């Protein structure tokens, strides 16, 4: 049968959501650095406020530059739309507060970015939202942790920092069996490596600071809705009143009725962004758009370089172990082959075969790898998670998250891989002598 014509990922990376500016002909997406937008007349203004007409009112709620980015990531993820936020953390917060209130509960992978762990474990309980953390590989643990008041399951495509591969199809099936949505942090993989929505996830968010923008120059987040979840379906009925019951804060709008497919995004924008205000700046959106234009090219090179570095480290006598799912000894090797056929990204951790002092010597001896708290830069990065990103976690929590005192995390950049290997080789040599 003839298949419908579809626009390919690489093309969408460059074009989705954008068009030459109708006023000036500018080919690049203009930076609409304006707080507000003029109303043609009073009736039009009222209609915009009441969602009878589409358009921009105030850049906290929406902005034309941000809207291009929102469409682009939705296209790349296979969603119905998205919301650009001030950071990845803001995207996670927006997803949670759109769905949950006090007394409700989340089941989350315990292999999370430290910032996400902080929000769930320490901050949200103050607002009445609690989380049970589970081994992301243990489906029975996910199931056992679900309570009557559970409203969300949450994990990362590749757990931080052990690269536990989230079995999205099975966790999504479990979530849906209980009338719950699955939220996935896809920062490490980007849609070029994995599209969680196509595997059953319902919501995806990114720290666009990382590979999407790609150059370590902005802070931003993106929250994408699949439009697939039935918020008032038989199994979910009554669980999501923010979407299925009249909202006094917006003329008694019932968001799931207003939009069959994008009710979640409507509520997130009309309440979460409006009231919490963690919006993205248009200049940030512009820079992330520039990054996404080359996402396919960069991700291919990131993965290619990571594979070279992984192979080097795995064979080095100073290295005890390398945690990369493409290696046969990684616990999720088979799952990674299925979900991540194009590669497992460019962020991974390894354990030095040496003391804590040798670990410090190694990090400080590196010249090309920059010692800092970020990943997904075009430049290669290194960090010691136990003393930085995960420093608030107890030794027990660290162990349960698969983090050791001697673990080193690398984010492999776009440099010539021979130069990266030379840098690592020299630092390992220095560590060996420490």
């Amino acid at each position, binding site marked *: *049968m*003839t*298949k*419908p*014509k*579809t*626009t390919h990922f690489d093309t*969408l990376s460059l*074009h*989705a*959501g*954008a*068009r030459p500016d109708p006023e000036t002909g500018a080919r690049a997406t203009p930076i609409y650095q304006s707080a507000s937008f003029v109303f043609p007349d009073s009736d039009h203004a009222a*209609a915009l406020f*009441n*969602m*009878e*007409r*589409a*358009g*921009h009112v105030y850049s906290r*709620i*929406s*902005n*034309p530059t*941000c*809207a*291009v980015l*929102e*469409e*682009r990531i*939705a*296209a790349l993820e*296979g*969603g*119905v*739309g*998205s*919301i*650009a936020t001030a950071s990845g953390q803001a995207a996670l917060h927006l997803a949670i507060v759109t769905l949950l209130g006090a007394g409700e509960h989340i089941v989350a992978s315990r292999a999370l970015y430290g910032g996400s762990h902080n929000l769930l474990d320490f901050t949200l309980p103050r607002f009445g939202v609690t989380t049970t953390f589970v081994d992301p590989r243990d489906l029975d643990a996910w199931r056992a942790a679900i309570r009557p008041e559970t409203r969300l399951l949450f994990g990362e495509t590749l757990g931080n920092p052990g690269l536990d591969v989230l079995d999205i199809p099975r966790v999504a099936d479990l979530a849906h069996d209980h009338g719950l949505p699955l939220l996935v942090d896809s920062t490490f993989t980007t849609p070029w490596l994995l599209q969680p929505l196509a595997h059953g996830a319902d919501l995806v968010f990114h720290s666009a600071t990382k590979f999407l923008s790609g150059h370590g120059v902005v802070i931003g987040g993106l929250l994408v809705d*699949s*439009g*697939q979840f039935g918020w008032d379906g038989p199994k979910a009925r009554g669980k999501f009143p923010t979407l299925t019951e*009249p909202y006094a804060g917006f*003329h*008694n*709008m*019932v968001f799931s*009725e*207003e*939009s*069959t*497919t*994008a009710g979640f*995004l409507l509520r997130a*924008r009309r309440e979460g962004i409006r009231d919490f205000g963690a919006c993205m700046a248009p200049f940030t959106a512009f820079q992330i758009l520039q990054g996404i234009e080359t996402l396919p090219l960069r991700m291919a090179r990131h993965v290619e370089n990571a594979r070279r570095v992984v192979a080097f480290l795995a064979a080095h006598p100073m290295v005890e172990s390398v945690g990369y799912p493409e290696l046969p000894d990684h616990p999720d090797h088979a799952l990674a082959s299925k979900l991540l056929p194009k590669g497992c990204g460019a962020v991974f951790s390894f354990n030095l075969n040496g003391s804590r002092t040798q670990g410090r010597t190694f990090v400080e001896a590196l010249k090309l790898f920059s010692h800092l708290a970020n990943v997904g830069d075009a430049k290669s990065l290194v960090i010691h998670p136990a003393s930085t990103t995960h420093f608030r976690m107890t030794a027990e929590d660290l162990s349960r998250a698969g983090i050791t005192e001697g673990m080193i995390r690398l984010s492999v950049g776009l440099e010539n891989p021979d130069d990266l290997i030379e840098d690592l080789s020299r630092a390992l040599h220095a560590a060996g002598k420490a």
Partner: protein
Amino acid sequence: MRTVVAGHDTYAYTGSRAVDPGLPTVVFVHGAGNDHSVWALQSRYFAYHGFNVLAVDLPGHGRSGGTPLSSVEAIGDWIGALLGATGIAKAALVGHSMGSLAALECAARHRDRVTKLALVGTAAPMPVSELLLDAARRNDHVACELITGWSYSAGKQIGGSQVPGLWLTGNALRLLERNRPGTLYADLVACNEYGTGDASAAKVRCPVLAILGARDLMAPAKSARALIAAVADAKVVTIPDCGHALMAEEPDAVLDALRAFL
């Protein structure tokens, strides 16, 4: 709003407002495989500007019970039954695609109940390709992809939604995917087999507005000419650079045309 029409639970979006017997009513009728939400912006506008709004989910669609009706004529009669069930003596009808033909049939068969008729993305006849019918018969996802691909103009295939942050084709695809098995096929068969458009148009006595997309591939503007010519009192608004998904591609242009007409 929920009511019972022809024995089945029926949902109609009202803009979260109760029906006021003192206000004129507009009934919005969606096209094949869609639901009330395709009218979100336009229906909400009229609900807050002096009208009762009933943006229905047809039988077997969206939040309504029952099974899809087997012909355009049957849908037209069902709209008449909806008005009876809700105690509304007269209403303006706004239909899109298959819904436009159903609204036309209602206006022809229930002339005393229809005050105005707006046909959006209309054509008569409305033949459906064998490729699409075959895919829909098998509940093959390809049917959803074909409709989405043909419903948006080339420019909007790549984005540019007037609703901030909405990916138009992704949203359209997801709405089609929600159909119960057999629903889309039943709708497409109803469109394909409908053959009395011109004759029904000649029976209509109320003012008619046709809103057409200049780049509509599903219901090409030229295919509406005979129908429009058969209507006694017809106006035409053609929206440039717009495909079949007019309410999503050009929501303001559609709304402005409806405002001027209703």
